[in-house]
């Protein structure tokens, strides 16, 4: 086998860099996934859940006031924030939990950063009668305390991770350690398009519905494709979901907005493509923020969901072939966009999604009024209100 032609590769990225103990489990998962992917009964069961439980299709909303204020391209918001549990994460979680159930698993485990994936996983577990344990970095349990309580309310056990930097990457480490200890009855519901094959492919497939709907909806509303699709990016699940249907449509520019933190010139950011280099970690070859000896960097973002030192392998490939563009958006600009969208459209975005809003604000005025931008509004911002207040120096109790 050639290094670059192996299974689960996107260009040279991806692969299955995991412990031998897990190899049979991921190979089994791949086999089962490929079977159910083509299984009409499974797909119809999943579609039914997405439509009648999660509330799909989500709206494509014309942000008329924002468009008018910025004075350039027409701006549409893909309202993934209106999904049940408040973000795009439910798409993947319903898919994986249903698959786990078909595979005879009785327990799911998941990592979470902002808590959105953890809440979605706990929700799916409650719905489908599965046991559920969530792993969350200590720093994140503090900045997203409301989501911790929400997960517990849904019947999940929440494990606080105190190793390493106590954020998302450490939550992934700990969930992998748990999975390797208990594979028989447990499925690891990975929350992004990362990790070993088949996760990047499978999670992307479960989120493809976002881009499919955008395409149908924009064609209906405007009779043409958008000029740009913008999404925030940590691991990259909402971004790949929004981008995937447009990859062949080369007139559509694709922008992924990374966490610029305190600035990409400082060490305090999580801008993987901007500042990272190629490495092998968390089961995949991709770009990572790391030092010269390959030690994974302690990254920073105001957004717990983007506070991750890696990026999914398909994004690494899209970057290399120059099909999508990855830009860094700072904490300060994201907070400004968070407030702007709330004030202008009456929509409070997740601080993750606010990174995409910030970039749209920057490029919309430079584009023509006959052009169209779609922002993937991946989640709602209720969870962030208290931490943004703290950021602004306002002390409120949640």
């Amino acid at each position, binding site marked *: 086998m050639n290094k670059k032609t192996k299974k689960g590769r996107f260009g040279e990225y991806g*692969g299955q860099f995991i*412990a031998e103990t897990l190899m049979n489990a991921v190979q089994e998962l791949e086999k089962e996934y490929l079977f159910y992917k083509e299984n009409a009964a499974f797909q119809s069961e999943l579609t039914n859940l997405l439509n009648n439980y999660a509330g799909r299709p989500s709206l494509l909303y014309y942000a008329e006031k924002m468009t008018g204020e910025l004075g350039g391209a027409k701006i549409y918001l893909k309202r993934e924030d209106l999904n049940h549990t408040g973000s795009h994460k439910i798409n993947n979680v319903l898919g994986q939990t249903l698959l786990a159930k078909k595979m005879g698993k009785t327990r799911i485990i998941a990592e979470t950063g902002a808590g959105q994936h953890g809440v979605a996983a706990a929700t799916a577990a409650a719905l489908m009668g599965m046991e559920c344990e969530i792993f969350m970095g200590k720093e994140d349990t503090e900045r997203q305390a409301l989501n911790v309580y929400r997960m517990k309310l849904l019947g999940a056990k929440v494990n606080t991770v105190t190793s390493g930097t106590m954020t998302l990457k450490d939550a992934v480490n700990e969930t992998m350690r748990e999975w390797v200890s208990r594979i028989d009855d447990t499925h690891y519901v990975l929350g992004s398009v990362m990790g070993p094959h088949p996760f990047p492919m499978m999670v992307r497939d479960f989120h493809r519905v976002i881009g499919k709907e955008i395409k149908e909806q924009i064609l209906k509303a405007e009779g043409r494709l958008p000029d740009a699709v913008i999404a925030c990016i940590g691991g990259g699940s909402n971004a790949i979901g929004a981008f995937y249907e447009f990859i062949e449509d080369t007139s559509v520019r694709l922008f992924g907005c990374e966490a610029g933190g305190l600035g990409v010139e400082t060490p305090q950011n999580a801008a993987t493509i901007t500042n990272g280099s190629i490495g092998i970690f968390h089961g995949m070859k991709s770009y990572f923020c790391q030092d010269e000896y390959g030690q*994974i960097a302690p990254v920073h973002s105001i957004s717990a969901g983007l506070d991750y030192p890696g990026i999914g392998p398909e994004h690494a490939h899209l970057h290399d072939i120059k099909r999508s563009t990855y830009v860094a958006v700072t904490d300060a600009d994201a907070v400004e966009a968070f407030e702007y969208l709330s004030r202008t459209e009456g929509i409070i975005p997740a601080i993750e999604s606010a990174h995409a809003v910030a970039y749209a604000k920057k490029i919309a005025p430079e584009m023509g009024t006959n052009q169209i931008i779609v922002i993937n509004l991946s989640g709602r911002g209720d969870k962030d209100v208290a931490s943004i207040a703290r950021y602004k120096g306002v002390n409120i109790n949640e």
Partner: protein
Amino acid sequence: MNRISKAFENKKALITFITGGDPDIETTEKLILAMEEAGADIIEIGIPFSDPVSEGVIIQEADKRALDSGCTADKLFDMVKKVRTKTDIPLLFMTYANPVYSYGTDLFMAKCKEAGIDGVIVPDAPFEEKDEFEEEANRHGICMISMIAPTSGGRIKQIACEAQGFLYCVSSLGVTGVSNGIKSNIAELIEEVKKTSAIPCAVGFGIFTPDQASDMAAVSDGVIVGSAIVRLIAKFRNECIEPVKQLVKELKNSIV
């Protein structure tokens, strides 16, 4: 015959693990010689990694201590080069894919050879991904050590066929350093290997006591002990040489 094969000749091999640079490089160097004197047949030196996903808490903390003390791959290459002038014991590096890849795999393996390292263990490079490292390793005469686990099942044959040096048999599900996790099917696992290959099989993960070492040695060609030793280093720091020597002696006696 290379140094690794020789270590299994006519005896059960005791393989001991320490994290390089824990608590400092000087202690690591002393420990290598002390463990050899106490009866170790092969020594595994961990290159500390920020995110050691296969490790339990004991070795996670060792990696952190080593990184905090400023340990790097380059410092370990220098140390091994120095210690190699004093001993002929087979020395292995155990680290994760990223420290090797980001160093430049070919350069890493060349430095291993130059320093006198015999083999490399990369737990997150399974059979399907080993060629990311193996070609470069072998080019410089370094063995890539493969692993099998209680969950390997039908994969054992292909892994055993291509295994180099010895086969690292993971005794339990989960991470290193969990003392009650050893699975009961280790003997069958090794029988399965022996059907296709004469490669020596050493059992590791969760072996703390001489009794456990003795049980595992009875069904295999050697045992690997890490967390039990690292635990002593955590407790005694720079004063760890004698307690480690004592444990290694007891382990060695238990498997003879």
